[in-house]
């Protein structure tokens, strides 16, 4: 396009902001609606269909049988509660681990140490998730590293390999960087002057922390928890690798039904549980301002 045509076009666009907005939005909107949202919608629609067991073909007649199975068979309730419970436990643990660390990194560490810590927190994210989980198998095994170390200091041994305890530890481990980073960012955003003012007004360390700092970094904590909670809720790889006999997660059943039994309608029905849970979580998180801290 020559220069005058371009200036005329850009002037025309300048005068019509709605056209600029529409053009900018068209790409992402088309992508999301056509590919992602449309597919999501169809997926959850298929929860109301069923599958012919021998041929594996989907039968397109509306039925609530999948949801009936979910409600009536206690096994699925157990699985759902276990998944949500461990997700919550992992989130709480990660918060407890991350906040002191982030506080140290944001307020006490020197500039150089900060750079090192930042790189150090990111490195694990670049090493394969699968292999990190796999390494934990060796650490927690009966004749593994942990028991060897405990034996060296004379503390006997524990039998937590392939169990829900193992899963709790491993999940806490893999998602920790996702909790550290937004909390660190939000602690950084708190101006020093606020803390100093609190001290001037007589509040001592813990009180200042609880009444001044904590409410200010809450959005960051909630932002981090979105990830720890959601990632645990939907995971099936960690239960497969380090879980034991009673460690089936919602993700395992969904993966089993899609990737193995090819029963997509039932998988979709079961997947509405994490969908609903996350939907509520996200709405609450929005209220708490987590989206600005993302």
């Amino acid at each position: 396009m020559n220069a005058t045509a371009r200036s005329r076009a850009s002037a025309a666009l300048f005068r019509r902001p709605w056209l600029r907005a529409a053009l900018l939005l068209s790409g992402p909107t088309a992508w999301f609606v056509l590919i992602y949202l449309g597919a999501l919608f169809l997926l959850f629609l298929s929860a109301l269909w069923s599958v012919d067991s021998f041929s594996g073909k989907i039968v397109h007649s509306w039925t609530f049988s999948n949801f009936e199975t979910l409600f009536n068979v206690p096994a699925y309730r157990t699985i759902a509660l276990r998944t949500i419970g461990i997700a919550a436990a992992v989130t709480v643990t990660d918060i407890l681990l991350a906040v002191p660390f982030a506080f140290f990194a944001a307020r006490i560490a020197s500039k150089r140490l900060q750079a090192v810590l930042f790189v150090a927190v990111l490195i694990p994210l670049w090493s394969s998730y699968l292999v990190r989980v796999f390494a934990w198998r060796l650490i927690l095994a009966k004749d593994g590293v942990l028991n060897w170390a405990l034996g060296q200091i004379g503390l006997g041994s524990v039998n937590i390999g392939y169990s829900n305890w193992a899963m709790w530890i491993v999940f806490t481990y893999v998602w920790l960087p996702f909790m550290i980073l937004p909390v660190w960012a939000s602690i950084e955003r708190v101006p020093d002057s606020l803390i100093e003012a609190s001290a001037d007004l007589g509040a001592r360390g813990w009180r200042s922390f609880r009444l001044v700092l904590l409410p200010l970094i809450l959005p960051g904590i909630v932002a981090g928890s979105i990830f720890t909670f959601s990632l645990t809720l939907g995971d099936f790889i960690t239960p497969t690798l380090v879980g034991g006999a009673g460690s089936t997660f919602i993700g395992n059943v969904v993966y089993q039904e899609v990737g193995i039994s090819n029963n997509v309608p039932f998988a979709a029905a079961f997947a509405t549980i994490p969908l609903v849970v996350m939907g509520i979580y996200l709405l609450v998180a929005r209220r708490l301002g987590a989206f600005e801290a993302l």
Partner: protein
Amino acid sequence: MIGTGRWSRVALAVWAALIMLFLFFPIVIIMLYAFNPSNVQSWPLSGFSTRWFSSTWHNTEVRQALWLSVRAGLLATAIAMVLGTMAAFAVDRFRFFGREAVSLVLVLPIALPGIITGMALNSFISFNSLTFSLLTIVIGHATFCIVTVYNNVLARLRRTQSSLVEASMDLGADGWQTFRFVTLPMIATALVAGGLLAFALSFDEIVVTTFTAGAQNTLPIWIFAHIRNGQQLPQVNVVVLFVILISLIPVALAQRLTRDTGMLRSGAQAPDAGAAAAAGAGGAP
């Protein structure tokens, strides 16, 4: 001031050190076991062998998987950069119907469990009778990478003044020139930081990829297959060791790029790095 007491500083420093130990201990194990002479990992290490390095190097399948992951990552990141930037500009500059919904919708692919995204995309691909190939992998990855670029660019745009754009146009530049000479330099580092994180996300992604790949192996799929097969396990460790070492470069780059914008004690504005990293890396599995 909180934490300036001697005891608190020491305690927190010890805590930080323990967390670092916790984060890196399994990684040390991974790197150590690249030298495992046996196929099965057991403790303690039964010897020291470098034979897996050469067999991994000559393994065409892993090289293809690595290359496929790189290609998928680059393509997905490119798409995410374009679409994410477009969305960020739209949300920052204009008021329109559904504006608040955009953030929520864009974060869905990461916030919802990967298995749902995977299933949805799998149905989409089967429904449209597309072949499972690099294209479908890229579609899947780009979908959840968009939000990392979006968040980064949006955070940066919020801190820049739109008056600069108007000034540029007053001085006679048309839309394209303004974008190229004024806007783009403003958002450049945010764009790159977002892109780096999008690439990291895509590179390590396994769940959605399982549902959107055909017979191809990306690196995580290859790793998963080898963990299952257990015949040449230390090769997996060798590959991951290699990836960790190589990734020091982009991580250091990300740190330098975002150095003056966040994660340092400027006491000032929104630190995009942490925000982006958190939002970005969320979909890793």
